[in-house]
């Protein structure tokens, strides 16, 4: 299994992924209210919190699927800033940044008209300019990696939800992203099917992938992540190691939320 290279010099305090003062406002309502977050290379951060807290919106701001009202995102050596003082970012800049960010959606969003293999190959061919043969070869390796070697020629409609999500993970990995974003990847799945997806994510984390995971899976947040961030009403109310955040939270809203989801 391949390990993810840690970029030179990022082992230190320098952030590898940096979101600075992200704001997403809809009229007067601030869905994301001045959220900043730094990730070191190889770090796994889980974002938890009640629904409607702006977790997914924040995540989608990181690759500009949602255009932030203001703020800046830096990934590796690429930076895109938006807000009143900045010009609207060009499509080229956005595409360049997105190329380094893999995203896994709650609803998989596999392309239904393409086989599993072609789902993974298409972006490689169009974005990285790989040849079809080269792309397919890489896709097969990735399918094997997520345990779906024999599903290469199946259409998404012939795959279970868990299989579809694993294919989606392979599709995102195919572009060799610097960071992977997971937007509630198991929410649309039955618990036992969700396990197989979580297992793949655990492995990824173990291999040193930098990951931001919006999730309701408390066990995953506790066991796999290096840091847990709690968001409430569009703002970060807690940010620390899983042990501290989940067993000894300082914020009242965090305690309230955790007691509700953990049943204590």
């Amino acid at each position: 299994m391949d390990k993810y290279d840690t970029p030179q010099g990022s082992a230190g305090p320098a952030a590898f992924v940096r979101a600075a003062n992200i704001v997403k406002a809809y009229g007067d309502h601030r869905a994301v209210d001045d959220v900043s977050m730094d990730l070191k290379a190889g770090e796994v951060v889980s974002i938890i919190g009640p629904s409607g807290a702006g977790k997914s919106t924040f995540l989608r701001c990181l690759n500009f699927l949602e255009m932030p009202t203001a703020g800046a995102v830096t990934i590796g050596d690429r930076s895109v800033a938006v807000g009143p003082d900045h010009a609207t970012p060009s499509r080229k800049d956005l595409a360049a940044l997105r190329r380094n960010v893999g995203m896994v959606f709650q609803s998989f969003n596999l392309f239904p008209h393409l086989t599993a293999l072609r789902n993974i190959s298409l972006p490689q061919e169009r974005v990285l300019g790989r040849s079809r043969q080269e792309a397919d070869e890489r896709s097969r390796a990735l399918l094997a990696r997520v345990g779906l070697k024999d599903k290469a020629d199946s259409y998404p409609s012939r795959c279970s939800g868990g299989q579809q999500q694993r294919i989606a993970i392979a599709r995102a990995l195919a572009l060799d992203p610097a960071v992977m974003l997971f937007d509630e990847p198991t929410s649309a799945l039955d618990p036992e099917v969700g396990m197989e997806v979580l297992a793949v994510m655990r492995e990824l984390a173990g291999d040193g992938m930098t990951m931001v995971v919006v999730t309701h899976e408390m066990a995953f947040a506790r066991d796999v992540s290096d840091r847990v961030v709690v968001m409430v009403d569009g703002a970060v109310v807690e940010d620390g190691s899983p042990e501290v955040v989940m067993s000894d939270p300082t914020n009242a809203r965090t305690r309230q939320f955790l007691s509700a989801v953990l049943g204590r």
Partner: protein
Amino acid sequence: MKWTEYLPELASGLGVALRLTGLSLLLGFPLGLVLAKLTDSRVRALRLVAVGLVEIGRGLPLLVLLYLVYQGLPQVGLTATAMVSAVAAFTWSAAAYSAEVIRACLVAVPVGQREAAIAAGMSDRDTFRFVILPQAARLAVPPLMNLAVQWFQFTSLAYVITLPEIMQAAYLLGTVNFDYLSVFLAAGFLYAAVTIPASGLVSLVEKRLSRHL
């Protein structure tokens, strides 16, 4: 004379009708795709022109559109044969109706598809070409086929601008033999003989295409 004996006499008209249908769809559908894209254009002028063309194409009776082209253009010094006029009017109308169908199908592709492609760094053009269009095309095939069947039926309208299609041939035969009932029933049979199997084919295709999605 029995009505079946008129059928061979109407065959030439059928050929003209099929040619008119084929030409106007061959030109109309691609034009419809262009109009569908333009109605969402960021350039206001293009959007207005596209919406205008679609609304006129759908808002006027095809009969009036036919007259407009065939009898209207000479007023500004342009003359076209009945066939060219008919193709022009039919193409316009087909483009307008298919633009609506195609637009609806493009919109019907879930937002997540676009997001997934964009998130992977694909350009807008590639996203449209490789992700949105293939899925929309699948949705659009049955309604566009239905449109095609309808357009074949519409060729009967070209009678009013003296195009020698089925109705024109039937009318002449009826006048000569003074036997309108049989002649027009034969004409009706001819239309049905194309329309019914074609409609059957559409439902067959519809069933097959819906299997994958």
